[in-house]
Protein backbone atom coordinates (compact mmCIF):
# COMPACT_ATOMS: atom_id res chain seq x y z
CA UNK A 1 0.00 0.00 0.00
CA UNK A 2 1.49 3.32 -1.02
CA UNK A 3 1.23 6.40 1.12
CA UNK A 4 -1.14 9.10 -0.07
CA UNK A 5 0.79 12.14 -1.20
CA UNK A 6 -1.07 15.24 -0.19
CA UNK A 7 -0.31 18.44 -2.06
CA UNK A 8 1.49 20.92 0.17
CA UNK A 9 2.97 18.23 2.34
CA UNK A 10 6.63 17.92 1.46
CA UNK A 11 6.96 14.31 2.45
CA UNK A 12 8.61 13.18 -0.77
CA UNK A 13 12.18 12.12 -0.25
CA UNK A 14 14.35 13.07 -3.19
CA UNK A 15 16.54 10.28 -4.51
CA UNK A 16 20.18 11.30 -4.16
CA UNK A 17 21.75 11.64 -7.59
CA UNK A 18 24.49 14.22 -7.46
CA UNK A 19 25.59 15.11 -4.01
CA UNK A 20 26.26 18.81 -4.13
CA UNK A 21 28.12 20.89 -1.58
CA UNK A 22 24.93 21.69 0.29
CA UNK A 23 23.90 18.04 0.59
CA UNK A 24 27.38 17.03 1.58
CA UNK A 25 27.56 19.64 4.33
CA UNK A 26 24.07 18.73 5.53
CA UNK A 27 25.01 15.09 5.81
CA UNK A 28 28.35 15.82 7.40
CA UNK A 29 26.63 18.03 9.99
CA UNK A 30 24.00 15.40 10.72
CA UNK A 31 26.61 12.64 10.96
CA UNK A 32 28.87 14.65 13.26
CA UNK A 33 25.89 15.68 15.36
CA UNK A 34 24.80 12.06 15.61
CA UNK A 35 28.25 11.00 16.84
CA UNK A 36 28.27 13.74 19.49
CA UNK A 37 24.69 12.97 20.52
CA UNK A 38 25.47 9.26 20.73
CA UNK A 39 28.55 9.81 22.90
CA UNK A 40 26.66 12.12 25.27
CA UNK A 41 23.57 9.89 25.38
CA UNK A 42 25.60 6.76 26.07
CA UNK A 43 27.33 8.51 28.97
CA UNK A 44 24.09 9.78 30.42
CA UNK A 45 22.27 6.50 29.91
CA UNK A 46 25.10 4.53 31.51
CA UNK A 47 25.03 6.89 34.50
CA UNK A 48 21.27 6.56 34.87
CA UNK A 49 20.95 2.78 34.53
CA UNK A 50 24.17 1.89 36.39
CA UNK A 51 22.30 0.88 39.60
CA UNK A 52 21.10 -2.17 37.65
CA UNK A 53 24.66 -3.47 37.35
CA UNK A 54 26.27 -2.06 40.48
CA UNK A 55 27.98 -4.44 42.86
CA UNK A 56 27.00 -3.90 46.47
CA UNK A 57 29.67 -3.80 49.15
CA UNK A 58 29.47 -6.65 51.59
CA UNK A 59 29.63 -5.40 55.13
CA UNK A 60 31.70 -8.04 56.90
CA UNK A 61 32.07 -7.48 60.64
CA UNK A 62 35.17 -8.41 62.61
CA UNK A 63 34.23 -10.37 65.76
CA UNK A 64 37.73 -10.71 67.16
CA UNK A 65 40.40 -13.40 67.24
CA UNK A 66 39.08 -16.80 66.21
CA UNK A 67 41.18 -18.54 68.86
CA UNK A 68 39.27 -16.85 71.66
CA UNK A 69 36.09 -18.77 70.98
CA UNK A 70 36.01 -21.91 73.12
CA UNK A 71 34.83 -25.12 71.54
CA UNK A 72 31.51 -26.31 72.92
CA UNK A 73 30.50 -23.12 74.68
CA UNK A 74 28.60 -20.69 72.44
CA UNK A 75 29.30 -17.00 73.00
CA UNK A 76 26.99 -14.06 72.46
CA UNK A 77 29.12 -11.43 70.72
CA UNK A 78 28.01 -7.83 70.50
CA UNK A 79 29.23 -5.82 67.57
CA UNK A 80 28.66 -2.57 65.72
CA UNK A 81 27.81 -2.90 62.10
CA UNK A 82 28.66 -0.04 59.77
CA UNK A 83 26.41 0.00 56.76
CA UNK A 84 27.12 2.10 53.71
CA UNK A 85 24.04 3.18 51.81
CA UNK A 86 25.49 5.22 48.92
CA UNK A 87 26.40 8.53 50.63
CA UNK A 88 24.88 7.62 54.00
CA UNK A 89 26.83 5.58 56.52
CA UNK A 90 24.86 4.25 59.44
CA UNK A 91 25.87 2.23 62.49
CA UNK A 92 23.77 -0.45 64.09
CA UNK A 93 24.39 -2.28 67.35
CA UNK A 94 23.68 -5.95 67.05
CA UNK A 95 24.85 -9.34 68.31
CA UNK A 96 25.32 -12.92 67.20
CA UNK A 97 25.76 -16.30 68.82
CA UNK A 98 29.04 -17.88 67.76
CA UNK A 99 29.31 -21.64 67.99
CA UNK A 100 32.35 -23.77 67.28
CA UNK A 101 32.84 -27.44 67.83
CA UNK A 102 36.55 -27.62 67.02
CA UNK A 103 37.83 -24.02 67.05
CA UNK A 104 38.25 -24.14 63.28
CA UNK A 105 34.74 -24.20 61.84
CA UNK A 106 32.44 -21.50 63.10
CA UNK A 107 28.71 -20.97 62.92
CA UNK A 108 27.06 -17.64 63.71
CA UNK A 109 23.37 -17.49 64.57
CA UNK A 110 21.03 -14.55 64.36
CA UNK A 111 20.19 -13.84 68.03
CA UNK A 112 16.43 -13.87 67.48
CA UNK A 113 14.28 -16.96 67.82
CA UNK A 114 12.78 -18.00 64.48
CA UNK A 115 9.37 -18.28 66.11
CA UNK A 116 8.53 -14.69 67.04
CA UNK A 117 11.89 -12.97 67.33
CA UNK A 118 12.60 -13.24 71.07
CA UNK A 119 16.25 -13.25 72.19
CA UNK A 120 17.11 -16.78 73.24
CA UNK A 121 19.91 -17.85 75.60
CA UNK A 122 22.39 -20.68 75.96
CA UNK A 123 21.62 -23.20 78.67
CA UNK A 124 24.99 -24.68 79.58
CA UNK A 125 23.45 -27.46 81.68
CA UNK A 126 21.55 -29.04 78.80
CA UNK A 127 23.82 -27.68 76.03
CA UNK A 128 20.88 -26.21 74.22
CA UNK A 129 19.55 -22.82 73.18
CA UNK A 130 16.32 -22.05 74.97
CA UNK A 131 13.87 -19.27 74.24
CA UNK A 132 12.00 -17.85 77.26
CA UNK A 133 8.94 -16.70 75.35
CA UNK A 134 7.35 -19.92 74.14
CA UNK A 135 9.70 -22.64 75.39
CA UNK A 136 11.45 -23.19 72.07
CA UNK A 137 14.56 -25.34 72.27
CA UNK A 138 17.35 -25.50 69.66
CA UNK A 139 20.41 -27.69 69.50
CA UNK A 140 23.93 -26.22 69.24
CA UNK A 141 23.65 -26.79 65.48
CA UNK A 142 20.55 -24.55 65.39
CA UNK A 143 18.08 -27.35 64.66
CA UNK A 144 14.71 -27.22 66.41
CA UNK A 145 14.49 -29.77 69.20
CA UNK A 146 11.11 -28.80 70.54
CA UNK A 147 8.63 -25.96 70.63
CA UNK A 148 6.85 -23.83 68.02
CA UNK A 149 9.66 -22.46 65.75
CA UNK A 150 8.95 -23.14 62.06
CA UNK A 151 12.64 -23.48 61.08
CA UNK A 152 16.13 -23.78 62.56
CA UNK A 153 18.00 -20.70 63.79
CA UNK A 154 18.95 -18.21 61.06
CA UNK A 155 22.66 -18.18 60.30
CA UNK A 156 25.12 -15.51 59.28
CA UNK A 157 27.86 -16.26 56.77
CA UNK A 158 31.25 -16.67 58.47
CA UNK A 159 34.85 -16.64 57.29
CA UNK A 160 38.29 -16.51 58.79
CA UNK A 161 40.48 -13.66 57.57
CA UNK A 162 43.99 -13.92 58.95
CA UNK A 163 43.14 -15.18 62.40
CA UNK A 164 40.05 -13.00 62.78
CA UNK A 165 36.53 -14.32 62.70
CA UNK A 166 34.38 -12.33 60.29
CA UNK A 167 30.62 -12.54 59.88
CA UNK A 168 28.19 -11.06 57.43
CA UNK A 169 25.22 -10.13 59.63
CA UNK A 170 22.48 -10.68 57.11
CA UNK A 171 20.29 -13.61 58.06
CA UNK A 172 20.32 -16.61 55.74
CA UNK A 173 17.16 -18.55 56.36
CA UNK A 174 17.70 -22.24 56.87
CA UNK A 175 14.68 -24.03 55.46
Amino acid at each position, binding site marked *: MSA*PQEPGCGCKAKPPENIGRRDFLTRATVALGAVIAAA*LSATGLGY*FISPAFQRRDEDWVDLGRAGEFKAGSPALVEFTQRRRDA*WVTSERRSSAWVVTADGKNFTAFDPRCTHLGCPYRWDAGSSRFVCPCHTAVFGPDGKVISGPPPRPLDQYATKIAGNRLMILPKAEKKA
Partner: protein
Amino acid sequence: MKDCALAAYSWVCERTGLDQVWTALMERHIPEAKGWVGLLYTLGSATMMIFTVQAVTGFLLATNYVPSPDHAYDSVRYIDAAVLFGRVVRGLHHWGASFMVVFAVLHMLRVYFMGSYKYPREATWLAGVGLLLLVLGFSFTGYLLPWDQKAYWATVVGTTIAGQTPVVGAWIANILRGTDGMGAPTLSRFYALHVLALPALTAGLIGVHLFLVVWHGISEPPKRSPGKVP
Protein backbone atom coordinates in the same frame (compact mmCIF):
# COMPACT_ATOMS: atom_id res chain seq x y z
CA MET B 1 8.31 -0.69 6.01
CA LYS B 2 9.21 2.46 4.13
CA ASP B 3 5.61 2.93 3.01
CA CYS B 4 4.57 2.50 6.59
CA ALA B 5 7.01 5.14 7.85
CA LEU B 6 5.94 7.46 5.06
CA ALA B 7 2.28 6.91 5.89
CA ALA B 8 2.96 7.68 9.57
CA TYR B 9 4.88 10.80 8.57
CA SER B 10 2.02 12.00 6.32
CA TRP B 11 -0.43 11.37 9.11
CA VAL B 12 1.60 13.59 11.47
CA CYS B 13 2.22 16.23 8.78
CA GLU B 14 -1.42 16.62 7.91
CA ARG B 15 -2.43 17.03 11.52
CA THR B 16 0.39 19.18 12.87
CA GLY B 17 1.91 20.97 9.90
CA LEU B 18 5.22 19.57 11.08
CA ASP B 19 6.81 19.88 7.64
CA GLN B 20 5.90 23.55 7.45
CA VAL B 21 7.17 24.15 10.97
CA TRP B 22 10.39 22.42 9.96
CA THR B 23 10.70 24.59 6.85
CA ALA B 24 10.01 27.76 8.84
CA LEU B 25 12.56 26.90 11.50
CA MET B 26 15.32 24.97 9.77
CA GLU B 27 15.09 25.97 6.12
CA ARG B 28 14.46 29.67 6.56
CA HIS B 29 16.55 32.22 4.69
CA ILE B 30 19.55 33.52 6.52
CA PRO B 31 22.03 36.16 5.44
CA GLU B 32 25.09 35.15 3.51
CA ALA B 33 28.13 35.29 5.73
CA LYS B 34 31.45 33.91 4.67
CA GLY B 35 34.33 32.42 6.65
CA TRP B 36 34.86 33.49 10.23
CA VAL B 37 31.95 35.90 10.11
CA GLY B 38 29.67 32.94 9.42
CA LEU B 39 31.06 31.19 12.47
CA LEU B 40 30.03 34.15 14.65
CA TYR B 41 26.40 33.39 13.77
CA THR B 42 26.64 29.97 15.47
CA LEU B 43 27.30 31.34 18.96
CA GLY B 44 23.62 31.49 19.91
CA SER B 45 23.04 27.88 18.84
CA ALA B 46 26.19 26.85 20.71
CA THR B 47 24.84 28.48 23.88
CA MET B 48 21.54 26.65 23.52
CA MET B 49 23.33 23.35 22.89
CA ILE B 50 25.24 23.84 26.15
CA PHE B 51 21.97 24.66 27.92
CA THR B 52 20.56 21.34 26.70
CA VAL B 53 23.62 19.49 27.99
CA GLN B 54 23.31 21.34 31.31
CA ALA B 55 19.65 20.38 31.62
CA VAL B 56 20.32 16.68 30.99
CA THR B 57 23.46 16.40 33.13
CA GLY B 58 21.73 18.50 35.80
CA PHE B 59 18.87 16.03 35.95
CA LEU B 60 21.34 13.14 36.18
CA LEU B 61 23.30 14.82 39.00
CA ALA B 62 20.06 15.50 40.86
CA THR B 63 19.33 11.76 40.92
CA ASN B 64 22.29 11.34 43.29
CA TYR B 65 22.46 14.68 45.08
CA VAL B 66 21.01 15.76 48.42
CA PRO B 67 20.72 19.51 49.16
CA SER B 68 21.31 19.13 52.86
CA PRO B 69 24.45 20.21 54.77
CA ASP B 70 25.01 16.75 56.27
CA HIS B 71 24.87 14.90 52.94
CA ALA B 72 25.54 17.37 50.10
CA TYR B 73 29.32 17.01 50.09
CA ASP B 74 29.19 13.23 50.59
CA SER B 75 26.67 12.78 47.80
CA VAL B 76 28.86 14.79 45.41
CA ARG B 77 31.84 12.65 46.39
CA TYR B 78 29.70 9.58 45.85
CA ILE B 79 28.89 10.77 42.31
CA ASP B 80 32.61 11.26 41.63
CA ALA B 81 33.82 8.04 43.19
CA ALA B 82 31.11 5.42 42.88
CA VAL B 83 28.66 6.18 40.08
CA LEU B 84 29.39 4.94 36.56
CA PHE B 85 30.48 7.94 34.43
CA GLY B 86 29.81 10.10 37.50
CA ARG B 87 32.97 12.11 37.02
CA VAL B 88 32.20 12.62 33.32
CA VAL B 89 28.65 13.78 33.96
CA ARG B 90 29.71 16.14 36.75
CA GLY B 91 32.63 17.32 34.63
CA LEU B 92 30.29 18.12 31.75
CA HIS B 93 28.03 20.09 34.08
CA HIS B 94 30.98 21.87 35.68
CA TRP B 95 32.64 22.93 32.42
CA GLY B 96 29.32 23.48 30.70
CA ALA B 97 28.48 26.01 33.41
CA SER B 98 31.60 28.04 32.66
CA PHE B 99 31.19 27.84 28.90
CA MET B 100 27.52 28.73 29.13
CA VAL B 101 28.60 32.16 30.43
CA VAL B 102 31.44 32.41 27.90
CA PHE B 103 29.26 31.61 24.90
CA ALA B 104 26.33 33.74 26.04
CA VAL B 105 28.68 36.72 26.39
CA LEU B 106 30.40 36.04 23.04
CA HIS B 107 26.98 35.80 21.41
CA MET B 108 26.01 39.10 22.98
CA LEU B 109 29.25 40.74 21.79
CA ARG B 110 28.54 39.53 18.23
CA VAL B 111 25.06 41.03 18.37
CA TYR B 112 26.37 44.26 19.89
CA PHE B 113 29.25 44.87 17.49
CA MET B 114 27.19 43.99 14.41
CA GLY B 115 24.41 46.29 15.59
CA SER B 116 21.94 43.40 15.37
CA TYR B 117 20.06 44.64 18.43
CA LYS B 118 18.68 47.66 16.51
CA TYR B 119 15.12 48.14 15.28
CA PRO B 120 13.08 45.94 14.97
CA ARG B 121 15.04 43.48 17.12
CA GLU B 122 15.14 45.32 20.45
CA ALA B 123 12.76 42.80 22.07
CA THR B 124 15.05 39.96 21.03
CA TRP B 125 17.93 41.81 22.65
CA LEU B 126 15.97 42.38 25.87
CA ALA B 127 14.99 38.72 26.06
CA GLY B 128 18.68 37.86 25.53
CA VAL B 129 19.74 40.17 28.36
CA GLY B 130 17.17 38.44 30.57
CA LEU B 131 18.65 35.08 29.57
CA LEU B 132 22.17 36.27 30.41
CA LEU B 133 20.97 37.31 33.88
CA LEU B 134 19.34 33.89 34.32
CA VAL B 135 22.61 32.20 33.32
CA LEU B 136 24.41 34.25 35.97
CA GLY B 137 21.69 33.21 38.43
CA PHE B 138 22.42 29.57 37.56
CA SER B 139 26.13 30.18 38.13
CA PHE B 140 25.59 31.83 41.50
CA THR B 141 23.16 29.25 42.85
CA GLY B 142 24.93 26.22 41.33
CA TYR B 143 28.29 27.21 42.76
CA LEU B 144 27.07 26.58 46.31
CA LEU B 145 25.70 23.10 45.74
CA PRO B 146 28.93 21.01 46.11
CA TRP B 147 29.03 22.45 49.66
CA ASP B 148 32.81 22.43 49.84
CA GLN B 149 34.98 25.21 51.26
CA LYS B 150 35.12 27.13 47.98
CA ALA B 151 31.36 26.91 47.50
CA TYR B 152 30.58 27.91 51.07
CA TRP B 153 32.84 30.93 51.27
CA ALA B 154 32.03 32.12 47.74
CA THR B 155 28.38 32.25 48.76
CA VAL B 156 29.23 33.99 52.02
CA VAL B 157 31.01 36.65 49.98
CA GLY B 158 28.30 36.81 47.32
CA THR B 159 25.44 37.20 49.75
CA THR B 160 27.43 39.69 51.84
CA ILE B 161 27.95 41.80 48.73
CA ALA B 162 24.18 41.74 48.21
CA GLY B 163 23.88 42.77 51.86
CA GLN B 164 25.82 45.98 51.19
CA THR B 165 22.83 47.46 49.36
CA PRO B 166 21.82 50.69 51.12
CA VAL B 167 18.79 50.53 53.43
CA VAL B 168 17.36 47.16 52.29
CA GLY B 169 20.69 45.25 52.21
CA ALA B 170 20.12 43.21 55.35
CA TRP B 171 16.73 42.08 54.08
CA ILE B 172 18.11 41.09 50.68
CA ALA B 173 20.91 39.08 52.30
CA ASN B 174 18.47 37.26 54.56
CA ILE B 175 16.09 36.55 51.70
CA LEU B 176 18.97 35.08 49.70
CA ARG B 177 20.28 33.02 52.62
CA GLY B 178 16.94 32.06 54.13
CA THR B 179 18.42 32.53 57.58
CA ASP B 180 20.85 34.68 59.57
CA GLY B 181 24.27 33.78 58.31
CA MET B 182 24.64 30.66 56.17
CA GLY B 183 22.94 27.38 56.88
CA ALA B 184 20.73 24.52 55.77
CA PRO B 185 18.00 26.87 54.44
CA THR B 186 20.59 28.57 52.19
CA LEU B 187 21.51 25.29 50.53
CA SER B 188 17.95 24.09 49.92
CA ARG B 189 16.92 27.58 48.80
CA PHE B 190 19.73 27.77 46.26
CA TYR B 191 18.93 24.23 45.12
CA ALA B 192 15.25 25.05 44.60
CA LEU B 193 16.18 28.14 42.58
CA HIS B 194 18.79 26.22 40.60
CA VAL B 195 16.68 23.21 39.60
CA LEU B 196 13.09 24.51 39.65
CA ALA B 197 12.70 28.26 39.24
CA LEU B 198 15.59 29.16 36.96
CA PRO B 199 15.19 26.30 34.43
CA ALA B 200 11.47 27.05 34.01
CA LEU B 201 12.12 30.77 33.50
CA THR B 202 15.01 30.05 31.14
CA ALA B 203 13.03 27.59 29.02
CA GLY B 204 10.22 30.14 28.68
CA LEU B 205 12.51 33.00 27.79
CA ILE B 206 14.43 30.84 25.28
CA GLY B 207 11.07 30.20 23.62
CA VAL B 208 10.41 33.94 23.39
CA HIS B 209 13.96 34.65 22.18
CA LEU B 210 13.85 31.98 19.47
CA PHE B 211 10.39 32.98 18.33
CA LEU B 212 11.61 36.55 17.86
CA VAL B 213 14.73 35.36 16.03
CA VAL B 214 12.60 33.43 13.54
CA TRP B 215 9.93 36.12 13.38
CA HIS B 216 12.32 38.94 12.45
CA GLY B 217 14.85 36.86 10.57
CA ILE B 218 18.54 37.20 11.20
CA SER B 219 20.18 40.55 10.52
CA GLU B 220 22.73 40.98 7.75
CA PRO B 221 26.36 41.39 8.67
CA PRO B 222 27.15 45.11 8.56
CA LYS B 223 28.48 46.39 5.25
CA ARG B 224 30.99 49.10 4.59
CA SER B 225 28.95 52.01 3.28
CA PRO B 226 29.97 53.38 -0.13
CA GLY B 227 30.14 56.91 1.26
CA LYS B 228 33.38 58.62 2.23
CA VAL B 229 34.82 58.09 5.66
CA PRO B 230 35.09 61.51 7.29
